[in-house]
């Protein structure tokens, strides 16, 4: 176990800058709101509004600070690693799966295996597909496609498959079961998701970086979304390719050696992971007790607690994943993340954690709570408006001329523009930075990138009230003790009919209509201000269905569409060559071992 590395001066400076920026802007906004609201006398709602706007503006400013920091170049300091031969360091690529499309999953493994061979790593890197699939029929299909993969890639002795019958600990338990059974055979493990893809050369570079820094326990890449088809999916794909590298660099500046783990597309030092990351079951029932849902954040915190460096190297290319194709899939995934992040409130006081790990937990919790805070701000503003006393133009009984209350409309409009600016400005600065560094070339040129940024802003603005409702509901459900479970991911095509969209968002339409009706009745001047919130809510089914439609155009173009990454091309090649269905095979023989079933053919 290494000694804890001291906090670097530039990491501390980044953190303090971001915290001060967010705090001060939040205070400024709160001051403006407070001053404007007390013109007619101090009321409880004025204090509440100031407090709520402080929290929401600070949160927005925090995101903006991250983007601004991301524009500052970062020296990763990997140095010349050409002397390190990754073939001398036994590595396994873990692919945990649960009720996935087996053909697609195993095609990806085949593509990565070809890519590894091209990087000269055949024989040095094994694959282990770790199935948690509960459905026996699906599991048999998995076995069929595994046999196809085995034959196709001559994988005997280096491509493994096993299925657990006991799904203890879900994904974290799945990885743990592998490490306790087979971890001693490997120095490093690359952890992927079923929809992950990674270039062989990227794996080689990750191994080199792990070898070069013996205190490095986990190295996280920034996976880029590929293969999106729908308007929503392509907008997310554009955002992931264009904005995320900058936001991630900002995050890396702040996190330093206490970096993030996002659960996949990362490499771990197996010994460090085994020593530090055995997750306990939390006391009590879900959603706050039981298995730790968002295990990745906790594992990163535990590695840092044990003195290991956890680092995000956003410069590592060749790391990919797929994203949700419609808002409903996104919201379902978000529900799971919401529960996982709120569960971290149990771990804020966990013994021995580094300050920044606790801060990251708090940040993750705030990311979801903030939806409720926005909703509360809107409600309190409405209440304040309705209950505001009529202005008294003659406070003095012997006054000859009326005295008008000071008009603060200009300040409030300024505040509104400032809040919108915090959302928009970072993205435009990223655009300008990309134009100056010619990064826009890969996105179809400067003009197309400009259109894509505008399109993404418009779409995210339309989706924001709908997402606010989904997130608020998720937070309330968790706080009321409702466990969302761990539903399997929905991948692939996700076109929604209007009927399906209505079923998923009818309740949002009802809320939007009720709020607008109440505003029109009780606060007509406020109604106009809140139209950008209420109208998207009322149009939610149309928005959901429309954004899930396939969209092939220059808008939201990403470099991977102009020139596909090698491993993505290989994946499409394998998927095209493999049969759509397989010849029937026998049910496999099984030998049951501790904690799982190891299947032999």
């Amino acid at each position, binding site marked *: 176990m290494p000694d804890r590395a001291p906090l670097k001066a530039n990491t501390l400076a980044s953190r303090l800058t971001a915290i001060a920026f967010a705090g001060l802007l939040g205070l400024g906004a709160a001051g403006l709101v407070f001053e404007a609201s007390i013109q007619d006398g101090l009321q409880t709602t004025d204090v509440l509004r100031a407090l709520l706007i402080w929290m929401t503006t600070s949160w927005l400013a925090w995101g903006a600070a991250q983007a601004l920091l991301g524009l500052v170049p970062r020296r990763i300091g990997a140095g010349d690693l050409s002397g390190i031969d990754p073939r001398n360091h036994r590595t396994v690529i873990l692919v945990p799966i649960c009720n996935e499309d087996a053909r697609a999953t195993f095609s990806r493994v085949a593509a990565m295996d070809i890519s590894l061979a091209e990087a000269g790593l055949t024989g040095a890197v094994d694959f282990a597909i770790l199935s948690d699939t509960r459905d026996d029929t699906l599991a048999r299909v998995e076995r069929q496609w595994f046999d196809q993969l085995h034959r196709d890639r001559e994988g005997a002795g280096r491509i493994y498959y096993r299925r657990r019958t006991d799904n203890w600990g879900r994904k974290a338990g799945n990885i743990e079961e592998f490490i306790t059974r087979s*971890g001693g055979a*490997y120095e490093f493990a690359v952890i992927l998701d079923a929809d992950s893809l990674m270039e062989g050369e990227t794996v080689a570079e990750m191994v080199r970086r792990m070898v070069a820094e013996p205190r490095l326990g986990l190295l996280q890449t920034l996976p880029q979304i590929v293969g999106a088809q729908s308007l929503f999916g392509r907008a997310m794909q554009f955002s992931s390719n264009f904005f995320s590298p900058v936001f991630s660099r900002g995050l890396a500046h702040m996190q330093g050696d206490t970096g993030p783990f996002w659960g996949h597309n990362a490499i771990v030092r197996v010994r460090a992971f085994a020593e530090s990351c055995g997750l306990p079951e939390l006391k009590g029932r879900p959603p706050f007790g039981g298995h730790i849902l968002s295990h990745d954040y906790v594992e990163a915190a535990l590695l840092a607690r044990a003195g290991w460096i956890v680092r995000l190297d956003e410069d590592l290319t060749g790391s990919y994943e797929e994203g949700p194709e419609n808002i409903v899939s996104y919201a379902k995934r978000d529900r799971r993340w919401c529960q996982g992040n709120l569960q971290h409130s149990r771990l804020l006081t966990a013994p021995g954690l580094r300050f920044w790990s606790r801060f990251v937990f708090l940040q993750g919790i705030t990311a979801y709570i903030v939806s409720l805070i926005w909703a509360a701000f809107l409600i309190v503003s409405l209440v304040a408006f309705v209950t505001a006393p009529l202005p008294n133009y003659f406070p003095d009984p012997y006054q000859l001329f009326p005295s008008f209350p000071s008009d603060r409309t200009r300040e409030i409009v300024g505040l509104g523009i400032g809040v919108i600016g915090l959302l928009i400005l970072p993205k435009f600065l990223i655009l300008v930075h990309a134009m100056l560094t010619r990064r826009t070339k890969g996105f179809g040129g400067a003009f197309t990138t400009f259109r894509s940024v505008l399109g993404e802003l418009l779409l995210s603005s339309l989706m924001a009230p709908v997402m606010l409702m989904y997130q608020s509901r998720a937070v309330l459900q968790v706080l009321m003790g409702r466990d969302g479970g761990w539903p399997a991911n929905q991948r692939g095509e996700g076109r929604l009919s209007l009927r399906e969209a209505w079923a998923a968002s009818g309740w949002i339409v009802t809320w939007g209509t009720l709020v607008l009706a109440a505003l029109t009745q009780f606060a007509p001047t406020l109604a106009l201000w809140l139209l950008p919130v209420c109208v998207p809510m009322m149009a939610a089914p149309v928005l959901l269905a429309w954004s899930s439609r396939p969209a092939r155009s220059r808008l939201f173009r990403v470099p991977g569409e102009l020139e596909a990454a090698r491993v993505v091309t290989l994946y499409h090649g394998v998927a095209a060559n493999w049969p759509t269905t397989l010849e029937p095979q026998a049910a496999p023989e099984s030998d049951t071992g501790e904690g799982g079933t190891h299947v032999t053919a």
Partner: protein
Amino acid sequence: MSNEAHLFEKAPETDAHVSIAPPEAPLVMPRQQLEGAPVRAPGFLARLMHFGGRAAQG
């Protein structure tokens, strides 16, 4: 998917015996201590919301 499963049910036995299980090389993975002093806030909030929800339902 269901067609595949149906065909699979009727498949003949195979006689291949290639081990596809990962190698046996155990590592100890001790349980970490995460819960220090009891944290009351989430439970309290959860109860508050629970009763709030029930009250809202009448």
